[in-house]
C-alpha cells in the first residue's frame, strides 16, 4: 500500500512540474548541463547548473539517451534510448519542443546523433532492423529535420557518432551487436560480432576507413566516442566470458586503434562495462565512466596511461568543465564535479535516476 501511495504522490508532483514549466533564466554566471533522467515514472531531459538549480524539464515520451546541442547553441536534439524511435528538438531559450521526429519505417534510433559543423544537417545512428544493417540518417535542419536519406554506417549496431575535429568526416562507433525490436534488447550475434570504428565522408556517405581491434578482442563492443585535439577516445563494453577482465578504453590517432594499457585491478573494478567518455578542456586527460563498477577513471590522452579513479554509485554522464582537468558528472541522483584528485557533490535531485549522458550547454 505504501508503495502505490508513494508512486501516486510522485506522479502528482511530476505532473505539477510539467504543467508549470520553469522559466529559462539566462544565467551566464554558472555553467549549465543537460542530461536525461527518470523522476518517478516520468522521463525528462533536464537543464541544470553548477548549483544544482533546474532551469528546464522537458517531458519525454520514453527513456531518453543522448542530448545533442546545435553548433549555434540555440537548440538541442534529445534522442530516444534504443530501440525507441523518437527525437525531440527543443529551443533552449523558450524551452519549447519545436519538432518531434520519428524514425522512418523499418528503422529505430540507437540513441545518438550529431550536427554538421554549419548546423545545416543532423545525423542519427539507426538500425535498419530487417536486414540488421547499421545506417546513418541525414536530416535537413532548415526544413523541420526532414529526412534526406540514409547511408551505410560501415558496420552493425552504430551507436555514438560525432564529427571529427576537422569537420570533414563522421566517426561512427559500430558496436557490432545485432538486435531486432521483436526481441527487445536481446543480442542476436554475440558469437560472430565484429565491432569497428568507421570514418565516413559526411557529405557523400562514402566509407573512408574502417578500424578494428585485434581478432581476439572482437567481443569488445565499441560504443561511445569523444573527440580530442589529437584523436578520438572510444569507450568499450565487453560481451565475452565474464572471467576475463579487459581494457575498456581505446585511443584512435587517425591511423591505429589501440587499447589503453589497463592495470588488472582497474580492469576488475571497471566490471567490463564503460558507459561514457570525455576529454577535459585541455585535451590531455580522458575520463571514462563505468556504471557497473561505480567508477570514474582518468587516463592520459597522450599514451593512455592510467592516472587514477574515484568511486561514485551509478556514475555515467560526463562532460568537461572549462578548467583543464575538471569534469562534471551525474551519478544516481546527484551531480558532481571531479578532478583526478578531488570530488565535490554539486546537486541533489529528488527521486532522480540520471541517465547515461551529460552535455555542456553554453
Amino acid at each position, binding site marked *: *500500500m*505504501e*508503495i502505490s501511495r508513494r508512486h501516486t504522490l510522485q506522479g502528482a508532483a511530476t505532473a505539477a512540474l510539467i504543467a508549470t514549466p520553469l522559466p529559462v533564466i539566462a544565467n551566464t554566471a554558472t555553467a549549465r548541463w543537460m542530461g536525461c533522467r*527518470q523522476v518517478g515514472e516520468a522521463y525528462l531531459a533536464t537543464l541544470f547548473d553548477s548549483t544544482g538549480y533546474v532551469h528546464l524539464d522537458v517531458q519525454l515520451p520514453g527513456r531518453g*539517451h543522448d542530448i545533442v546541442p546545435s553548433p549555434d547553441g540555440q537548440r538541442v536534439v534529445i534522442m530516444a*534510448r*534504443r530501440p525507441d524511435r523518437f527525437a525531440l528538438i527543443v529551443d533552449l531559450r523558450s524551452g519549447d519542443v519545436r519538432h518531434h521526429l520519428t524514425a522512418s519505417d523499418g528503422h529505430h534510433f540507437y*540513441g545518438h546523433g550529431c550536427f554538421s559543423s554549419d548546423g545545416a544537417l543532423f545525423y542519427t545512428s539507426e538500425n535498419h532492423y530487417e536486414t540488421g544493417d547499421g545506417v546513418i540518417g541525414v536530416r535537413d535542419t532548415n526544413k523541420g529535420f526532414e529526412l534526406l536519406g540514409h547511408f551505410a554506417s560501415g558496420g552493425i549496431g552504430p551507436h555514438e557518432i560525432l564529427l571529427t575535429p576537422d569537420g570533414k568526416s563522421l566517426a561512427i562507433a559500430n*558496436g557490432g*551487436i545485432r*538486435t531486432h525490436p521483436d526481441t527487445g*534488447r536481446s*543480442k542476436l550475434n554475440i558469437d560472430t560480432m565484429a565491432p569497428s570504428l568507421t570514418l565516413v565522408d559526411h557529405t557523400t556517405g562514402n566509407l573512408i576507413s574502417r578500424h578494428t581491434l585485434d581478432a581476439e578482442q572482437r567481443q569488445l*563492443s565499441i*560504443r561511445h566516442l569523444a573527440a580530442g585535439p589529437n584523436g578520438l577516445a572510444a569507450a568499450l*563494453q565487453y560481451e565475452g*566470458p*565474464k*572471467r*576475463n*577482465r579487459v581494457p575498456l578504453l581505446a585511443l584512435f590517432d587517425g591511423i591505429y586503434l589501440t587499447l589503453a594499457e589497463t*592495470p*588488472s*585491478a*582497474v580492469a*576488475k*573494478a571497471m*566490471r*567490463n*562495462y564503460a*558507459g561514457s567518455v570525455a576529454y577535459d578542456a585541455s585535451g590531455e586527460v580522458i575520463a571514462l565512466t563505468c*556504471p*557497473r563498477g*561505480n567508477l570514474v577513471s582518468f587516463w592520459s590522452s597522450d599514451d593512455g596511461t592510467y*592516472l*587514477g*579513479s*574515484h*568511486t*561514485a*554509485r*551509478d*556514475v*555515467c554522464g560526463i562532460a568537461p568543465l572549462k578548467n583543464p582537468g575538471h569534469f562534471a558528472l551525474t*551519478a*544516481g541522483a546527484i551531480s*558532481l564535479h*571531479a578532478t*583526478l*584528485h*578531488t*570530488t565535490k*557533490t554539486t546537486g541533489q535531485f529528488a527521486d532522480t*535516476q*540520471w*541517465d*547515461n549522458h551529460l552535455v555542456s550547454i553554453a
Partner: protein
Amino acid sequence: MPFSKAFRSTLKGGSAALLVTGSLLSPASAGAISTDQTTALLTALTDQLIVPGYTHLAEESSQLADVLDAYCTTPDTEGRTQVEAHFHTTMDAWQRVQIIQFGPIYENRGPARFQFWPDKRGTGQRQLRQILNNQDETVLPSGALAEKSVALGDLQALEYVLFNDPDVTAQPDSFACRYALAIARNQEIQATEIVQMWTRNGGYREQVLSAAEGTDVFFDEKEAAGRFLNDMAGAIDVVRLQKLDRPMGLTLTGARPKRTENWRSQRSLRNIQLNLESVQQFLTVEDGFGDLLTSIGKDETATAMRELVSEVLVDIAAFDQPLSEIVEDPDTRGDLESLLAKLRSLQSVVREQLAQDLGLVPGFNATDGD
C-alpha cells in the same frame, strides 16, 4: 583459511588502495562484506538448498514412477492412495525449487518442461485432451516426451491425467495410466539431468562457488549473490501476481477459481506455502542471507524479513478452504487482500532494503548496451 586465499585478499586490499586516488563519494554500505563472506553465502545456498532440492525432486519423481508402474498393472485402492501421495510429494519437491530462476533450469526448454503454467490460452490442455481421446501411443516410448510439446510431459499434464477423471487410470493396463507413468519417467530424467548439470565437474555449482574469481557466467561473487536475491524477490512476484492476483480478479465477480494453480489436486495454497518456505530458507539457513546481514550489523533487516515471512506463512496455514473457494467467498476473500499487502511489504524489503544493505542494487545505467 588456506594460504592462497589469504594471499589473494591481501593483494586485493593492496590494489584497491592503489586504485582509488580520491575520496569515496558515496559510502558503500556493502564495504563491510568480504569476498569470503559472500562465497560462504553462495556455498550455503547451493549446497544446502539448490542441489539437495533438485536431488530430492529427482528421487521423488523416480519413486512416483515406480508406484505408478505397479498401480497400472494392479489398480487397487491402496495403490491409488500411494499414487496420489507420491504425486503430492513430487509436486512438493518441485514447488520448493520453483523459485530458482537461473542456471541449468533455463537450458533446453526451460522451467516449462517441469510445469507449463499458467496455460493462459489453454493450448496445453487441448493437446493433452487430444492425446487422451486418441489414446496416442506415440507419447509412451522412453524418451518420446522429451521431443514433444512441454505441455504433454510436465507436472500439469500429470495432474490432469490423474485428477481430472480418476476413473480413466483405474482400469488395469489403461492407456491413461501408462501415459501418467511416461510423464513421471520424463520428469525423473529431466530432474536427474538438472542435478548432473549442477554437480558435474565444471558444472554450474562450480560456476557459482568460484564466482569470486570470475567464471563464464559470473563476473564476480556479487553478481552471483544478486541472482539469489532476485530469486527471492521473483518468487514473491510470482506468488502475488500469478498465484493470487490473477485468480482473484479485481472484484468478487471477476474471480476465476480455475485460474488457481493445481486446483484439480487442491494444492494451490500448499504450493504458495512451499514457495515462501524456500524464501524463508534462503534467509534462515546457516550462512544464508540472515547470517550475512547479522554479520554486517544489519539485524534489523534480517528481523524484519524473518517476521514478515513467518507472518505470511502463519496466515496461509490459517486458511481452511482451498484457494479456488476462497477467491469466490466474500467472507474470506478479504484475508487474501491482507496477505497480498504483506507480500508486497516483504517484496519491498527484499528488493530495496536487503539489496541496499548488501550492495546489490542494480544501477540505472548498468543495463546492457547503452
